Each structure stands twice: as structure tokens, then as C-alpha cells.
């Protein structure tokens, strides 16, 4: 009996492993730029530069910044007519994979290797120090090495605008923030959002929860359920794949007639989750940054160092589709605040 049981449980376990693998994979996105992936393989007299990218555990279908970065590279490939094999990515399945994955590109003499995400910072530094002639770049982390270009975003500035929208649109005077892991990047989202809300209406309550994971939609759903239950009607999430669950909960509630909203993050998430639940999105132009830095490399303008992209540089901001759900006067107010931040009249807290 015991043997049967154990065999059964092992089978169940292996099945669940496979299913878990599928579960975290959202369906393909009906988005315009995705088509360019294989189209640009024509070759020709194009530059033969090779650019690689290492994702964190989210992978290139995370509906979030890994995907955005990959889209940036794909766009570059299409625009410059790079051969198909000249851009590639490796997905990391655990922390231990970062170094070997980065090393794979570096040792293979790829011209530029991207590391995507704060968590890769230390590992990328190690690889950069060991291979001084290789060029690397990283999103979201500060890596101090002459052969690395670090690109960071002023998420707090963009999130401030999301906070303005939320404070204006909430009917219950309560809004929520769902964070992934409590790291400096996500902290910037939280503080910016809260500052934006309070700037418009100090009486609006901001509920805040960190789920501790970027890849757990189930956790996102239960957290969102609690928040909506506590009276929040708008939730801003900065939690990668975990946020998929926030959207699902909002959809369920919307179907039951509740008036709840989600503010998306990183990409224009209304394209994935629909306009009926997506109020707006705080877009972080990772694709643009990846595109620009890679282009600089091709043009021979690559330089190490740390670059911050904020509202002034169009590195962050609200999605262009915001006008579908956000009324004109609110967007006008958003624009006023944006100008104030760009001019330096308002300094958004980041720590």
C-alpha cells in the first residue's frame, strides 16, 4: 500500500512540476511588435553584431520587464535587419544560473550581453570583472565596472502619476499597492505611488502589501481579494507575474458587478488584460532602453556607467491608451504634475 502511495505521489509531483511550468506561462500576446521575431531574418549587408540577453526566473513571457527587454532586442533586429541568430536569450531557472548564462554569451564573444533585473547585479559584476574585454549592460541594478552600462529607471516619478490617477478616480477613498519583493526598485514604485495619491488627496488611504514573489499569480489573486475586501477599488501592482493574479481577481469581481480597477505596470497591460479592468499602466520603457543602449553599441558609442531614465527622458510614464478609462480632466492634471516633476518643482521620494 505504502509503495503504491509513494509511487502515486511521485507521479503527482512530477506532473505538478510540469503543470507548474505551464501555469506560470501566460498565453501569447496579441501585440503588434511580436511579429517581428522571425521576420527580420533576411540578412543582407546588415551589421553582424551579436547581442545576447539573460532573463531572470520570469522568462521572456512574463508580461513584464523581461518580455519588454526581449521586445526591444527584437525590434532592433527587425530595424537593422540582423540575422536571426544574432540575438538570443537564455532563461535562468535559479540564482545559480545567472553566472553560467552570462558567461555563455561572454565566452562566446557576443558583442553585448544584457542582464535583466536587480537580482542579477552581483553576478553580472563578477562576470564583468573576470572578463574585462567583454561588454555588458544591466537593467535595474547599479553595477560599478568600466565595461558595464547600468540602466535604472525613476519608477517613483512614473508611479507618482499613477498615484494621481488613483486618488482622482477612487470612489471608496481607498487604494492598494501590491509589490513583488521588497527591494529598492519596487520600493520606488511604492513610495512614488503613495506620494502621488497624497499629493492629490491626503485623506485617501493606501493599503500596501508585499507578496514576496514575482512569479506567483495565485498569491497575487488572494492578496488582491483581501485588498478589495478591505474597501480598495483601485490596485496598483508592481509584482511581475504575481500581478496576473491581481488582474484575474479584478476580472472576477467586475463580472459580479463590482467597480474595481487595476493599474498595470512595466508594459501597457491593458493590451493583455483588457480595458475593462485596466485603468492605466505605469509603463517602464525597458524595451526603449535596451534598444537605445544596443544601438549605441552598434554605432560605436557604448560607454560604461550608470544611466537614470525618468519622466524627462520618457523612460517612465503612463500608457498611451490611458484615455480609454481615465477622463480628460484627470489626464490634464497628470500632465500638470508631470511638468512639475520634470521642471524639478516636485521631488518625488524614492527611499
Amino acid at each position, binding site marked *: 500500500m*505504502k509503495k503504491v502511495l509513494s509511487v502515486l505521489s511521485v507521479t503527482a509531483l*512530477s506532473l505538478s512540476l510540469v503543470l507548474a511550468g505551464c501555469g506560470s*506561462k501566460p498565453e501569447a500576446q496579441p501585440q503588434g511588435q511580436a511579429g517581428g521575431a522571425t521576420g527580420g531574418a533576411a540578412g543582407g549587408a546588415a551589421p553582424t553584431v551579436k547581442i545576447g540577453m539573460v532573463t531572470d526566473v520570469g522568462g521572456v513571457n512574463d508580461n513584464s520587464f523581461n518580455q519588454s527587454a526581449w521586445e526591444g532586442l527584437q525590434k532592433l533586429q527587425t530595424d537593422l535587419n540582423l540575422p536571426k541568430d544574432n540575438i538570443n536569450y537564455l532563461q535562468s*531557472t535559479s540564482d545559480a544560473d545567472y553566472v553560467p548564462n552570462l558567461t555563455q554569451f561572454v565566452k562566446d564573444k557576443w558583442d553585448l550581453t544584457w542582464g535583466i533585473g*536587480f537580482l542579477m547585479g552581483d553576478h553580472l559584476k563578477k562576470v564583468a570583472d573576470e572578463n574585462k574585454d567583454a561588454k555588458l549592460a544591466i537593467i535595474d541594478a547599479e553595477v560599478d565596472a568600466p565595461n558595464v552600462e547600468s540602466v535604472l529607471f525613476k519608477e517613483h516619478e512614473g508611479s507618482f502619476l499613477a498615484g494621481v490617477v488613483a486618488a482622482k478616480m477612487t470612489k471608496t477613498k481607498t487604494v492598494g499597492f501590491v509589490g513583488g519583493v521588497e527591494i*529598492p526598485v519596487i520600493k520606488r514604485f511604492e513610495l512614488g505611488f503613495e506620494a502621488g495619491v497624497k499629493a492629490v488627496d491626503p485623506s485617501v488611504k493606501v493599503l500596501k502589501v508585499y507578496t514576496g514573489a514575482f512569479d506567483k499569480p495565485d498569491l497575487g489573486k488572494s492578496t488582491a481579494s483581501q485588498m478589495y475586501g478591505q474597501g480598495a477599488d483601485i490596485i496598483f501592482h508592481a509584482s511581475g507575474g504575481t500581478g496576473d493574479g491581481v488582474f484575474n481577481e479584478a476580472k472576477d469581481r467586475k463580472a459580479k458587478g463590482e467597480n474595481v480597477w487595476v493599474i498595470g505596470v512595466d508594459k501597457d497591460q491593458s493590451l493583455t488584460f483588457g480595458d475593462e479592468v485596466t485603468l492605466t499602466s505605469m509603463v517602464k520603457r525597458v524595451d526603449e532602453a535596451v534598444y537605445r543602449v544596443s544601438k549605441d553599441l552598434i554605432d560605436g558609442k557604448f560607454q560604461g556607467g550608470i544611466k537614470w531614465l525618468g519622466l524627462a527622458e520618457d523612460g517612465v510614464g503612463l500608457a498611451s491608451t490611458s484615455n480609454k478609462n481615465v477622463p480628460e480632466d484627470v489626464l490634464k492634471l497628470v500632465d500638470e504634475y508631470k511638468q512639475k516633476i520634470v521642471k524639478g518643482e516636485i521631488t518625488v521620494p524614492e527611499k
Partner: protein
Amino acid sequence: MNRVIAVFTKESFLVPLVAIILGLLTGAIAMLAGGFNPIKAYMSLLEKVFGNAYNFGETIRQITPLIFTGLSVAFAFRTGLFNIGAEGQFIVGMIASTAVGVSLDLPAYIHAPLAIIAGAVAGGLWGSIAGYLKAARGVNEVITSIMLNWVALYLANWVMNAFFVPSGQQRSEMIHDSAIITIGWLSTMFDSARLHWGTLIAVLAAIFFYVILWKTKSGYELRAVGLNPHASEYAGMNVNRNVVKAMFIGGMFAGIGGACEILGVFHYQAIMTAQPGYGFDGIAVALIGGNTPLGVVLGAILFGILTFGAAGMKFGAGVPVELIRVVIASVIFFVAAHGIVKIFVKPIMKKKKEGGN
């Protein structure tokens, strides 16, 4: 010597072997269905692993923790316990070794061993919680150990955040140099792949596993309890004590594995957003290895090669890394479903019986 030959021709060896081949074939079919070239994929997998010194070294790094967790699961299995908690014991071992590595300042010859022992004891105690609950209250160890995995994960993050993580960071401080077990010269030889003494300890642990189970009295008791607890009790053995002991030793293996990851590979402990997964893979490793020490080592080598080489498959043939999980899952499936495999093995066995004996 005869014994070694016997091991390789026994059914317990043939079944996993056939299962592995069937698993690889299933993976190949999945690749064909996805429009990839399976031969090219497997070739690039092998090339990734054996192609250069660096990647070969990193494969060994990948194999090492799997030996530990595989031994952990296999040991408990020998006493009739299903230890799904290797994951948690692994994590607790990480915590203990980080704590010792960061907060103590000792000479190297005592610091590193102490950190490993701390990991072993922590893992062992964590394992024996499930063992104790089973012995004292009859709680199923599958349930408790799987729940303890999550407790361990969040405990680790809490301990790290509370005591060891500098503000604005996502990982603990570096452990002191005296606690590091990386082998510098070997690492240089392998193009700075992260090689460490843990691999040697893993092999020693496998030998320890064999000696204690098959060469000592208490090992005999442990196995007897696994085979038939009632008969053992009737024969005057203390079943409950053996259950706790098995879980303690099993947990120890996993705990050392966790300690070696910290002391040899990372040199710090990161805040984890998910389980590291070595414990779960350890279940499969133990299963493929037939719960024998040699089998576990071989199983770990297979798993290490497959998981590390998966990136090569992506690189060389464009096959998504998830596909290697399909291969692994089908290997597990075929090992678990002996019946299917035996259909393939039977003709071979028959021939051998006619020929030999």
C-alpha cells in the same frame, strides 16, 4: 568485483536505464512536435556540458547538491519514510552555515568545518521534527515535511532580513574568507567555474550512506524498520527511535548540501522568492537511483547534466529550457511506472536467464 557487475546487470539497474532512454525519446517526440531538431538539441546539450572546462566545472557544481538531497530522500526511504522535506532541510542548512560564516571569526581550518557541521545539525534537526511528529503522534511525514519546506523558506527570509541583510540589499553580507570552501586552484583550472570541496564531501556522504546502512547494527535496524515495522517491533527494535534517527540523518545530508551551496558557490545567502528546487529534484534522483548510494550519485549526475545542459539546448538548437523538464518528468514517470518499462526489459532479462546462471 562480481558485485559491481551484478549491480549493472540487475533489473534495478536496467529499469532506470530503459526509463531514461524512453524519457529522452519522449522529449525528442515533444521537440519534433514543436518543430525542433531533437538530435541537434541533444548534441548541443552534450556540447554545453562537455564542450569546455568552464561548463564542465559548472555541471559538477550543479550535480553536487543533487547528490546530497538525493541521499537525503533515499536514506529516509530505506526506513520506509518519504522525505519530501529535503528542500526545507537544505534551506535550513543554508541558514545555519550563513549564520556561522558571517558572524563568527575563526581560523580557516575550524571555521569552514564548523559551518558545515552547523548546516548538518540544522538540517538534521529540521528533518527530525517531521520524524518526531511521525513517531510520537503518527502524523504522516509527507504532510509535515512538505509543510516544513515552506516554513523553512520563510524562516530563511526572515532570519536573513532580521540579522544579515544590509539595507537596500537582497542578500546577506559575504561570509568570511575563512569559511569559504571554494577550491581556488581547481576553480582556476576550470576557467573560474565555481568548484568546491562540497563535491568531495558529497561522495564521502554516499560512502557513509552505504557503510551505515549495510555495515552497522543500527543500519540493519533502520532497514528492518523500513521493510516491516511490525516485524521489527516484534523483534525488539524501537521503531519510533529509528524513524526519528532516519529523518535526522536524512536531514543531515540535505543540510550539508545547503551549507556547501553557501560556502562553496554563493558565499552569501540571497532572499529567496521561491524554493531552490534541489530537494524536489532529490526525490527524483533517489527514485532513479533505486535508493542506493551509487544509484543516487549516478542519478544526480544525469540530472545535473540535463538541467545544466538545458541552456545549451536553448543556445544551440533554440529549444526552450522548459522542454528539459518534459524529459525529466517522463524519466520519472517511466521509473515510477515500472510496469511499462518492464515490457521493454523483459526480453533482455529472459535472454540473460537462459544464457547465464
